[in-house]
């Protein structure tokens, strides 16, 4: 399993890998927002956490379609399916590698972008923390979508369409946790714990569904 993790990480950073593209996309999306809403710093500070979360959601979905498609195209998927190791575990490890390669950089880049958004320190920390906890959920549920669309030639867009509605709860609790941390009366912990619970639930549903879909889509 470590072998798989190491291989996927290597693939992500080698030429043609998707690790940096996600962060670049994230930064570009967030950088474009002020041109749309105007340079009002107060407004940007207010909507900043939401913008960062939406940007991270889209960036995390980007590249998910290649998660299994690349394996399928060169025939590796066949061999992975034949192994004695439970497929669910393999999928989980692949998700983990994908998250480390694309999700974690988003989390690390978020404070920088938070500065652009004129967010103060607590909001910045809360955004980073919620992204850290929440982005794995997007990867897990996205893996199910990626596995379902693995055999489709233009699965990329379809994966986003299928996964985004399912990822709405992650966005809701992520953003409300950030706002709860910044605005006084609302407590931070309940939405944050819901977010954590979501990640754990998706960590089960995602790989199980993805494994079933991969088995169903061999040809």
């Amino acid at each position, binding site marked *: 399993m470590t072998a798989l993790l190491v291989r996927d990480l290597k693939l992500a950073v080698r030429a043609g890998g998707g690790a940096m593209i996600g962060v670049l996309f994230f930064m570009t999306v967030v950088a474009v927002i002020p041109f749309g809403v105007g340079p009002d710093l107060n407004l940007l500070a207010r909507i900043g956490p939401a913008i960062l979360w939406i940007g991270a959601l889209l960036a995390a979905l980007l590249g998910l379609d290649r998660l299994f498609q690349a394996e399928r195209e060169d025939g590796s998927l066949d061999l992975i399916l034949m192994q004695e190791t439970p497929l669910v575990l393999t999928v989980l490890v692949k998700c983990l590698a994908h998250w480390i390669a694309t999700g974690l950089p988003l989390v690390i880049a978020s404070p920088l972008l938070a500065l652009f958004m004129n967010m103060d320190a607590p909001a910045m920390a809360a955004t980073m923390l919620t992204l850290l906890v929440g982005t794995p959920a997007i990867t897990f549920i996205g893996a199910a979508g990626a596995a379902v669309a693995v055999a489709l030639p233009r699965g990329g867009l379809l994966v986003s369409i299928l996964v985004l509605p399912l990822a709405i709860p992650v966005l809701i609790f992520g953003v409300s946790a950030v706002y709860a941390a910044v605005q006084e009366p609302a407590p931070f912990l309940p939405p944050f714990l819901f977010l954590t619970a979501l990640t754990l639930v998706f960590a089960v549903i995602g790989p199980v569904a993805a494994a079933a879909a991969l088995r169903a889509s*061999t040809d």
Partner: protein
Amino acid sequence: MRLVAERLSARRGEDLIFRDISFDIGAGEALVVKGPNGSGKSTLLRVVAGLLPRETGKVRLVGEGDHAFETVASACHYLGHRNAMKRELTVEENLRFWKDFAGDSAGDSGIGIDAAADAVGLGGIVHLPFGYLSAGQQRRMAMAKLLVAWRPVWILDEPTAALDAAAETMFAGLVKAHLSRGGLAIAATHQPLGLGAVKELHMAGFAEASAEAWA
């Protein structure tokens, strides 16, 4: 140990590709599947490897000794049309990944990466990215993958297509060595593999379009 298939049939979409295919091969034996294009050779191999669902029949391993395999697939190596190697990684990284990820089945162990590269006649270039190799070299390295982790059963789908005569001889030697270690092999091929006396299975072609599916 024996690999036994009983009255297998498989469908693709609505078509029954083949039906009632049975075979039985023991340790040290090879089965060569022959037939025209579209007769279902690849489908048969993928069914045996557990990659496609079978319509009827079963595939099982008999007399596997102390260690029972969980599935037939986990006792098999599958060499398909695609090489299952990453272009971005070096040959060594590719082979090491499959060696570690697949691991050895009980009974024997795979050879080292350099030894495997030597065995396919490409020693000394394992440090190159896989994508830099020519098509023939890539195919040979995909064969080296069979050697680094031990599996008793080799399932080979057109293994020597697009290879020159020397490479064919080399591959025949690999398969013979595998058989002499007590392994089994099933190969679908148009060309003679040069394995000497082997069992043969002829596939006739489309069984039938299953009109009854929606009747």
